């Protein structure tokens, strides 16, 4: 058994627990511990993504109780990719947080490590109740992190976030209860197998469970009309937390992709292709709502939050085709959009520090002190987000446009994706010119502190990922295709977890 699979889960748990032990000691030790853990997890994730690309799907049987009875962790290309994205992003966010943010409240480092554990766990688990558990780990720690540093708006946004998500958790339990009641198992691969021969009289109930579950994932992914918590939660929390949360909505996206290809996919018998009629229209309206919010934005942080909304809409609209090539394109877009929106949150925060009166608001203020550095960061990140060349937004957008071309809703997808790009171009162009160009005379009494290299390092690194995604576009798109191929053929997953006999059941059901 490959113990490395558990690394991205257990190491943050251990580091988090040790951070709690260090609660009353110097922050330096907590930082060191947290950063070491994050770096180690990143290294492990790199090893795991290499394994996932070279080996078949791996299964880790916890407690040595064979599936479907015990809990399993499953490492396929999708989960390996998500873990790598998470751990890299977390490492960079923590470097940023260690500059100042972690000082503003208690227990930041412990909560941060538990957050990583929760996200990685959600990506790895092959058990639907265990997914619930990791959603809870994620939810509680993200609640703690949103509130970190306090402030009235932060507390209100955090309250909305946690209450909506707690209700979401109860709904999750109802849905899982129905699934367990009808199919008698919690293992996701086993659910998929049992779904293939579920009797027709249970169809409506099973579908109801699947759709209720979808509403929970839609809440996590921030799809309309369940996205309202997002702009304020992301807009008001501290920058490194908001940046880390760029990957949180992707957990919802991941869950949708996983559950509705594996359990309610092609081969799901009476409940086959369950959310196909729902997903794309909902995602496209989310894209529109994000664009409207973007246009209305009067603050760079707020604008960044709506960019997250738009990226979720785009991503799920493309995934909504449930076409192999389109999913591959979405897999290319996913890391790009995660890293870039995260970078935008960090850049906005650094801009905030050098504009004494306006902060991130779109009103004229004194020029920022480090014009070249911040201007470069903003311009680069904005170019990438808008989808202009030569950065990764462009290649990802082109790939998505190309792969959805044959779908019947292609005109909608094209029109909205391109119009979304144009609107973000207008908004970010406006934001950039106001912040960097439309400046008031410098006030010699009001000097802001310079941003050190280490402070700017995370945002610079995030930005530099963008050209790398383009330069290595060949191998990356190949990996994405292989990933999409694995996702759209869930029999592989079932075979890895439950053996060949069960996988055959799934394959047979696909025809009928």
């Amino acid at each position, binding site marked *: *058994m490959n113990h490395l699979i558990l690394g991205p889960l*257990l190491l943050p*748990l*251990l580091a*988090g*627990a040790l951070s*709690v*032990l260090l*609660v009353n000691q110097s*922050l330096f030790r907590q930082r060191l511990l947290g950063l070491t853990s994050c770096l180690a997890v990143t290294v492990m994730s790199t090893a795991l993504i290499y394994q996932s690309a070279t080996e078949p799907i791996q299964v*880790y049987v*916890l*407690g*040595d*109780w064979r599936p479907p*009875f*015990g809990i399993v962790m499953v490492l396929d290309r999708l989960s390996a990719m998500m873990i790598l994205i998470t751990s890299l992003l977390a490492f960079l966010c923590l470097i940023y947080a260690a500059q100042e943010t972690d000082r503003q*409240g*208690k227990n930041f480092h412990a909560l941060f490590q538990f957050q990583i554990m929760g996200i990685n766990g959600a990506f790895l688990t092959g058990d639907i*109740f*265990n997914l619930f*558990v990791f959603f*809870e*780990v994620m939810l*509680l720690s993200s609640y703690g992190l949103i509130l970190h540093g*306090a402030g009235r708006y932060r*507390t209100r946004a955090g309250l*909305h976030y946690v209450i*909506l998500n707690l209700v979401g958790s109860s709904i999750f339990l*109802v849905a899982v209860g*129905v699934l367990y*009641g009808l199919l008698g198992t919690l293992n996701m691969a086993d659910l998929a197998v049992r779904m293939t021969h579920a009797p*027709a*009289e*249970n169809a*409506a*109930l099973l*579908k*109801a469970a699947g759709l209720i579950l979808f509403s929970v994932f839609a809440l996590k992914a921030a799809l309309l*009309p369940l996205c309202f918590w997002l702009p*304020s939660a992301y807009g008001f929390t501290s920058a490194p937390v908001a940046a880390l949360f760029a990957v949180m909505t992707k957990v919802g996206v991941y869950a949708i992709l996983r559950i509705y290809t594996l359990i309610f996919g092609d081969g799901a018998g009476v409940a086959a292709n369950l959310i196909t009629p729902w997903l794309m229209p909902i995602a496209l309206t989310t894209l529109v709502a994000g664009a*409207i919010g973007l*246009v*209305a934005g009067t603050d760079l942080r707020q604008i960044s939050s709506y960019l997250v909304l738009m990226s979720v809409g785009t991503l799920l609209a493309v995934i909504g085709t449930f076409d192999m090539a389109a999913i591959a394109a979405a897999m*290319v877009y996913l890391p790009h959009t995660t890293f870039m929106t995260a970078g935008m949150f960090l850049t906005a925060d650094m801009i905030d520090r050098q504009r004494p009166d306006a902060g991130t608001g779109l009103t004229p203020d004194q020029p920022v002190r480090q014009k070249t550095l911040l201007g470069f960061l903003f311009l680069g990140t904005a170019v990438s987000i808008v989808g*202009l*060349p*030569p950065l990764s937004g462009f290649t990802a957008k*082109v*790939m998505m*446009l*190309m792969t959805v071309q044959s779908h019947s809703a292609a005109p909608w997808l094209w029109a909205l994706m*391109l119009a979304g790009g144009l609107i973000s171009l207008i908004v970010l*162009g406006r934001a950039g010119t106001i912040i960097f*160009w439309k400046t008031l005379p410098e006030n010699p009494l009001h000097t802001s502190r310079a941003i050190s290299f280490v402070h700017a390092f995370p945002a610079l690194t995030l930005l530099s990922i963008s050209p790398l995604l*383009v330069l290595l*576009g*060949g191998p990356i*798109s190949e990996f*994405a295709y292989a990933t999409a191929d694995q996702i759209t053929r869930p029999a592989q997953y079932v075979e890895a977890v439950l053996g060949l006999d069960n996988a055959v059941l799934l394959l047979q059901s696909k025809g009928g």
Partner: protein
Amino acid sequence: MIIALIPLLPLAGSIIPFLFSSRSHHAAAAGCVAGVSLILLLAQAPAVFAGQMPIHSWQWIPAIGLNFAFRISGFGFLVACLILGIGLLIILYARYYLSTEDPMGRFYAYLLLFMGSMLGIVLSENLILLMMFWELTSISSFLLIGFWTHRADARQGARMALIITGGGGFAMLAGFILLGHIVGSFELTDILASKEQVQGHHLYAVTLVLILLGAFTKSAQFPFQFWLPHAMAAPTPVSAYLHSATMVKAGVFMLALMFPVLSGSALWFYLVAPVGLVTLVFAAYMAMFKDDLKGLLAYSTVSHLGLITLLLGLGSPLAAVAAVFHLFNHAMFKAGLFMLSGIIDHEAGTRDMNRLSGLWKYMPVTATLTMAGCAAMAGIPMFNGFLSKEMFLAQTLKPNLFGDQAWIIPLGATLASIFAVAYSIRMIHEVFFNGPATDMDKQPHEPSRGMRLPAEILMALCLLVGIFPAVLAGPMVNAAAQSILGPEMPEFTLSLWHGFNLALAMSAIAIIGGIVVFKFRRYLFDSHIWFSRYCDGKAIFETVTDWLIQSGYRLNQAVFNSSLQRYMALLIISVIVLGSSPFWRSETKFLGTATMTAIDPVTFIMGIILILCALATVITHRNRILSIIMLGTVGLIVSLTFSRFSAPDLALTQISVETVTIILLMMALFMLPRNSPKDSSRYRRQRDVLLAGLAGGGAGALAMGILTRPYETISDFFLAQSVPGGGGTNVVNVILVDFRGFDTLGEITVLAIAGLAIYALLHNFEIEAPQTDALGRPWTSDRFPMILANITRPLLPLALLFSAYIFLRGHNEPGGGFIAGLITAAALILQYIASGIVWTRPRLNFDNHIVMAWGLIVALVTGLCSWVFHYPFLTSTFTYVSWPWIGKFELASAIVFDLGVFLVVVGSVMLILVKLGAVNSPDAQTVSTLAQHHPDLEPEKEMF
């Protein structure tokens, strides 16, 4: 590789200017980069003139058809020569033009970036690669136009140019993807050879429109012409380069590039020719009325671009040749004229023609050069502009698809030529003559040598090409046209004299008409005022963007209103809609076939109480204490239900959770008024009742649906394996700590996180219980009751003993770490309640953080131990040992895990309760004195 270097060098060179500090070094470095690129380009000349097309290609991202592929076609070579040649002159010119305050290094960096992108456009072999360079020109031109960032017009102009050209680029990208889809390749070589395939495809019309949108926006064709005049806020070198020779030419370059594959259809003609014609006439007319020299030149540029577009729209091979030739000529004279207008601005302090006059006296050389440029612009014989204009006029006379209305094209062409002559004369007249120089800020004089040299070179070329076209321009134009037209290449000769023909007559009419119009311009100026008021595209553009922003803002305010109630209602509605949708047209029966158990009186009564208490909780919700009591009763009934249906573990857990929760709620209530205000409208209450009823009813219905169906689950395995596999007879506990121990590990982490999060929240928040209520009465008069204190102290050891018992028997009998932890926490908290924090805290002197953390570590390490024995994480083992006096005793690794659970539960529950209690304890004032010794209680100073 050499071809690829031509665009890549300037792109990479855009960092060079950052490496030097002196202004001259910047210019020299930029010049070197451009120069090397030009040499590399010229080295390809023999191949190009021999009719070859060198191509170099490397695969990049096959998934999107992107190849790193470059080609040098005759046409590409010509435009690349213009880009680099004029670019070098601009680099020289800008060195003298920019003032010492301008950041020179940044300017050259942007300029080289732009130059490289332009070269990329004209040399790309792959359409997607071309698209990358195309949008790069939008970005770099944005930076260049907005170079003088302190000027509002520069910012607006830059933004407008970016949005219009960038937006057009998005459309063009879509068009390219469709084109690539039709052809099956993104290589230009393949695409240009697939005319029939493309034009026969049902997507041809869409593709064409999308690509034309990109080209028209870039080349400022009607109705997108307005961004270009506003881009004149840029420094003059930028205008001279971008808005005469290069960027705006990218659009017509694209039209010419796509000419072999997209042209020839009626649709092409009806889309391209009218746009070109309208732009040609409209912009020529507008140019007449511009008082700003650069504004005049800008509209003139738009007009000339319209001319080229019209030529390409006409679609005949000779028209294409004329288009290429005019593109070449226009770049030269217009770049020169822009530089000259910059010189005038620089030396006279203004470029407003109302203020300028009589400069001939001060700067005769500049005046002569400007006259040469204007002559070329107006199409006077002996200058290059005349030649291509003649060819253009001849082409407009050919029959075309307008049929009977074909005369409209030569009419428009003549009109535009008349205006062109008129505005050229006006420019010369008002700047250099028109009385003595009066309204100048400074004494005008000839510019420095370096600043004038580029214009001199360009004007000399205009004249030389005008006189010896066949020698100087012939081969290049020939190669360019050949590469566009291929086998359809017509016979043509470039010469000054074509004999007396209708085109010459039109030229003559234009010159005479131009002079007449100039003479009587006053009348036109009067009539123009209303026209210019309604025809400013910028105003419309700004109205549209403002409207977009305003309505977006309003819509957003209406929807995102930060009301949790609304968000919650939306969530519940979504769940109801999604969850009920499968039943809308379902034909199968909702309930299953299983028979229901008969209801006994006890269960029935319990059910009734449960329902009543649930209702009472809602109805009494404004009286908070009452409501909590009702809620507690609901919890109690639920525990009773658990034990009624033989789930003692669940019942125990439920009871202890209830206890702790109620304590928690009471503490929170302490800080709130007794009654909550009435704040929901009638409608809102009705809506909420409906939603809650549907959601609750729906969940109940789902449960009924499941319970009436046959039930087969994996739980039989758990029952069978509990003793042999898990070593415990209490299946619930074995599931918790063994079968699904990983879930439990996750859940105790959740509990720990909740503790940390709530602790951090309260820590930052500094809530204080009020001292008095609204009427001035003391908030609380309670003292710690002595009887309670005296009972609870001896009770503590008993409670702890009991919880140890519950813990130890957990694996086999109802109990376990979770329940034991809750009991311990409740027992400890009872001490705080009874005796107050000041008395209790020093006596229970341990940090709950530490307890919690050790709990997690114990659980985790227990799981890790199985790695030592080469088993997966959390594999359990157990054995039986015989202890003296106690007898046979089971030792299970799961018990250690359960100990971790116990510690986490105690630690986190205590962490929350003590923190919350410390805030609102009656003796809260004294707490702060304890703070130094007990960091749990009050915020401490920053430690780092």
